[in-house]
């Protein structure tokens, strides 16, 4: 059964996509790596970003972490605070 996740976008990723949140269709049991693959397909310009991490519920997530539609998911381009 297919579902989708909502992904928050910041910084350069928000600028590249023109959106601050997107809905991404994902099959049940999909993980972080699959989400990133899907996003790169959908937005080829993401290839120009130096690195992309994914945060799940406010914590950096491993590529193997499984996602659910209840998670708060965010795409984290290279940080530059301070």
């Amino acid at each position, binding site marked *: 059964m297919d579902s989708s996740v909502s992904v*928050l976008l*910041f*910084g*350069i990723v*928000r*600028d590249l996509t023109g959106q601050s949140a997107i809905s991404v269709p994902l099959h049940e049991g999909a993980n972080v790596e699959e989400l990133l693959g899907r996003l790169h397909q959908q937005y080829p310009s993401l290839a*120009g*970003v*130096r690195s992309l991490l994914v*945060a799940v519920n*406010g*914590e*950096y997530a491993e590529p193997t972490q499984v996602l659910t539609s209840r998670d708060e998911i*965010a795409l*984290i*381009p*290279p*940080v*530059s*605070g*301070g």
Partner: protein
Amino acid sequence: MIAITTDPIDVASALKYLQSDQAGAIDLFLGVVRDNTQERPVDRLEYEAYDRMAISEMQKIADEAHRRWPLLRYTIIHRKGTLLIGEMAVLIGVATAHRNDSFDACRYMIDTIKQTVPIWKKEVFTDGEEWVNAHP
């Protein structure tokens, strides 16, 4: 005390918070918007944060600093929004009994913030703009 704010950072109240009878040393680091990056003139910076996660990542950094050094008090205040030349983007303050600890902990905190906390800055130049660190 850890905060993200759109208001100008208030150094005096941060300092008041850091003071205690046990404190012999306070190190305050201020990150300020300067007028150029590698000689390219900067007009302003635009900071954006994933607030919830930025706060929790800053808290982790402070907790780790607390494990490594005997901190009495600390504060991290990061501003977001549009900042002009000379405005403070970040204040790190550390109070300890002895000075070496205050320097070491303060430096650790600012160095680590720049590596892990989901805050982004865009440099707006007179002739263009760029998200810092975003490109290879």
